[in-house]
């Protein structure tokens, strides 16, 4: 569902997601993300990348997780990469693609 890759030298954590990020998946992910992204007291000094290359569905609750993670990471420290076009459009419709730095 999600694999974390921690590059301590470059201070980048990549979370590579797979499959459907529906409401149930999002519930499970929330805690894992907090633990693995080294977010303490709502803060982190790592650059966080969500790789959605193998994601084919995202629920609004998953988008909320992206937003809260982006807020904790701080300006310019969060991005979403490798979106399939359908998922890219979903972020566009949410109106949050700029805040989430979706490429």
């Amino acid at each position, binding site marked *: 569902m999600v694999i974390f890759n921690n590059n301590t030298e470059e201070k980048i954590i990549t979370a590579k997601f797979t499959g459907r990020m529906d409401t149930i998946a999002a519930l499970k992910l929330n805690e894992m993300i907090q633990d693995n992204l080294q977010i303490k007291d709502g803060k982190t000094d790592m650059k966080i990348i969500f790789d959605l290359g193998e994601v084919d569905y995202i*629920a*609004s609750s998953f*988008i909320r997780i992206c937003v809260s993670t982006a807020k904790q990471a701080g300006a310019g420290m969060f991005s979403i990469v490798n979106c399939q076009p359908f998922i890219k459009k*979903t972020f566009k419709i949410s109106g949050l693609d700029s805040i989430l730095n979706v490429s």
Partner: protein
Amino acid sequence: MSENIVNTASEIVENAQLAAAEFHQYNQEKTDHIVEAVFRAGFKNRVKLAKMAQEETGMGLWEHKVIKNVLGTQLIYESIKNEKTVGVISSDTRTGIIEIAQPLGPIFAVIPVTNPTSTTMFKILICLKSRNPIIISAHRGAAKSCIETVRICYEAALEAGAPEDCIQIIPSGNRELTQLIMAHPKIALILATGGTNLVKAAYSSGNPAIGVGPGNVPVFIDESADIQFAVKSIISSKTFDNGTICASEQAVVVMHSIKKQVIKEFEKQQCYFLTPEEIKKIEKIAIDEKSMSMSPSVVGQPVAFIAQKAGITVPEGTLILLAQLNGIGKDFPLSTEVLAPILAFYSAVDYNTAVNMCIDLNYLGGIGHSACIYSNDEKRILEYSELMNAGRVLVNTPTSQGAVGYFFNNLAPSLTLGCGTGGKNITTENITAKNLLNIQRICRRMPNEMWFSYDLSKYLDESQDIDIILKDYYKNH
């Protein structure tokens, strides 16, 4: 404007936008499953919600509100259940055009006090069918029943797998919040059903809107009509939910030649013609003198209540009060819309004068809405229809039940009736799910041979005669 309200408005719209993002990923099957679940939940609660609405608003009759709830659930559902609203909805090999349905985005829906639960369920169903999240604003006089309707529908929708926040309701009576959401740039469309001010506010918001305001439905009973049938039909419509439907009859117009017969028939069928003194008394309680609009205190009330309030005595069991008026306009308050069992009555010397009266009534606050004719003369039916500015011209049909579709004709069942440009709408149609879609067209290359075989340089020559150009252009080669 307080910061809290601004934040609340933004939060509500952002929630809806997230729901829209999730919803656009749904396929037809999943969408239809949700729509069916919500229809079933709403239909199951049709009686409870009808009683709640009647008790809370004090308007209309709960038995008739049940029928409205059936319209807003079963009949709407039946009319949209087989519609394609996701992905490719049509493909024409002849024209090379493929149509794709896309949702609009968050829809802000304003609900009137007169039909609160039925309109709420109707708007929810057509929004869900088109994969659009809906934000509902209830009239403060019907807040409780709308909240309960939304709760029932939302729970059923979530249970069936709908996105979180696909249905929201905002606190009623907060004008600032309503205005902020209406004007929010992320709102895709406003579905406003209500009074003139509300509809104006919707159109001034800067967002696309389908606003349905008042009607002022004229009914012409032609000499060729079956008078007994016409009167019975009018009564069944004007007494339906005590006249709360905006398409209900407002004025009956006849020619002198049949006036006596029509009056006699109305009286025979338990209707009462007011004396000039009684008309004045009814005017005072039915129409607000300053705004020249109907007084909420009579809306959806039975004749006995209205008569008592006005201090007049009418025969027990009277169904409708009729006011014979000599004119149309501000000097004749009952010539305007009153959503209660009160009808204006006019007689004219001839056909042309009668139709002119109907035109005046139609243009007095009801442009684009509905009109009616009872006639067996096809020529006159067509002539009358062309002269009215009305999205629906009902023929030999009760207008309340006729304009909303299904019962008496093949109009789409709807509780939001488009009023065309006369009502500042883009459509005269009965609004349904298909009106809540952006239709994209994939256009295959199919070059027009006529165009490409023509010597286009001829267009550059100003001396070329138009008829010669046309002859050349359409010539077979």
